[in-house]
């Protein structure tokens, strides 16, 4: 049975419930959705003793607070937002027991942009096409009451390493050739791998746009639209790389110059405006 568990006081820039994603409907244009930092999401559920894809709150940025409506165990994973529970600091990736009425507050990001808040049993939302992930701009609203499964779970000891989230905002992402790499000339391919890029402010769950660069402009045009997936890096004619993310379109007409290595998608999910990014070929 589902029980009232958490009330959103301040949802911040963008908060949503995410699980492992929605499969089987991309052929109809339905994005896959799911946690943008799959590593943090996985560690969180592991720590709490939940099933691996139990839904959690994905919180963007450090402007967030909420109140527990019942006693339950919870944990935070992903980017460290300097959180406290009624004034007591919350250590990341550790299971805490919250009591009814406790308030959780975020203060300041220490690198990265997405934090996951999970409770034992996992939050619940209405299932749509096999997944509870909110998508296409749906967001948790101020004052919203979230339910969770009334399930007592045993916390787990888990090893983790969050050194991929960088306080200095300098990132390197490993990529491999994209299906359209052959359409690009040497100059663009070389500059794409040698130059550094700035993450633009146009980033959300659909995609991460990097600042355009002349050094990689003038690429091929007229690629027949084909499927894309999270991690595909499209390059526009004006030289703007766009990393397709979880809520992104399922097909695209811009050529895909490279694809983010699966393990490094977690980095792409933590990028924020102004970070620097270099690509490294594997």
């Amino acid at each position, binding site marked *: 049975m589902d029980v009232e568990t958490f009330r959103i006081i301040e949802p911040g820039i963008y908060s949503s419930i995410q699980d492992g994603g929605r499969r089987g409907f991309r052929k109809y*244009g339905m994005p896959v959705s799911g946690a943008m930092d799959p590593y943090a999401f996985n560690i969180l559920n592991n720590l709490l003793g939940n099933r691996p894809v139990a839904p959690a709150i994905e919180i963007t940025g450090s402007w967030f607070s909420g109140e527990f409506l019942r006693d339950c165990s919870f944990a935070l994973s992903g980017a460290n937002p300097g959180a406290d529970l009624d004034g007591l600091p919350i250590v990341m990736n550790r299971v805490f027991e919250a009591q009814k009425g406790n308030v959780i507050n975020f203060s300041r990001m220490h690198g990265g942009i997405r934090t996951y808040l999970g409770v034992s049993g996992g939050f619940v939302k209405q299932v749509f096409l096999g997944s509870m992930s909110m998508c296409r701009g749906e967001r948790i609203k101020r004052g919203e009451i979230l339910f969770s499964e009334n399930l007592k779970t045993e916390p787990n000891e888990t090893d983790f390493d969050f050194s991929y989230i960088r306080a200095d905002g300098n990132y390197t992402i490993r990529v491999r050739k994209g*299906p359209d790499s052959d359409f690009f000339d040497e100059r663009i391919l070389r500059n794409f791998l040698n130059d550094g890029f700035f993450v633009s402010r146009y980033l959300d769950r659909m995609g991460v746009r990097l600042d355009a660069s002349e050094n990689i402009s003038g690429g091929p045009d007229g690629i027949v639209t*084909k499927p894309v997936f999270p991690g595909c890096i499209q390059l526009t004619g004006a030289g703007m790389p766009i990393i397709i993310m979880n809520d992104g379109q399922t*097909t695209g007409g811009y050529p895909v110059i490279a694809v983010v290595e699966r393990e490094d998608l977690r980095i792409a999910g933590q990028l924020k405006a102004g970070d620097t990014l270099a690509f490294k070929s594997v």
Partner: protein
Amino acid sequence: MREDFDYRLHFPADNYILIDFGNRIDEELNKYILGMADVLDHEAIIEVIPAYSSILIEFDTGIAQKTELCSFIKNIKHVKTRAEGKIHDIPVIYGGEQGPDLSFVALNAGLTEEDVIQIHTSVLYRVFMIGFLPGFCYLGGLDKRLETKRLDVPRMVIPAGSVGIAGMQTGVYPEKSPGGWRIIGKTDFKFFNPETGTIFPVRHGDRVRFKAVQNGC
């Protein structure tokens, strides 16, 4: 028995395979692709996404390795093309507030607005693929006379149900979206209908016919 089409296999990620039939739009090839998608049935395959001239496969690396899936794909021979699907009649209010670019499309083609409507409604369009937005159908068959380039500056909001033309394509925005297509009309037909049991009423290989109506659909 017809010949199989040639393709290349790409491995854009550890858990994805792209079957690439080349950079082209061809009805016979697309029918073949839909037929092939129907038989891509393997316990490791999570999702199959057919497009104009390619098929993307996501698979579970815990169940099968890339090499096993490659031989599974290569052993698919003598693919039966998928049979023609349903025909959907789409009522459209052309022009006016609902189709602000109808006059431009007419002017651009050197035709009257009535001609544009007559030509646009006279074709049985085929659904080559679905993507971009949930339920957005890439339709083939637009009459060459109606080809119109996109807006130079895309509109911030195009209402759900808007019928548009972009280059050699025509289609319907299933939901509100920014976009650069020339909007010639609007329909109440829902290509994406989350409130009903038939969330995606139009499928690959189906055909779509537009019908001019005066008001209310």
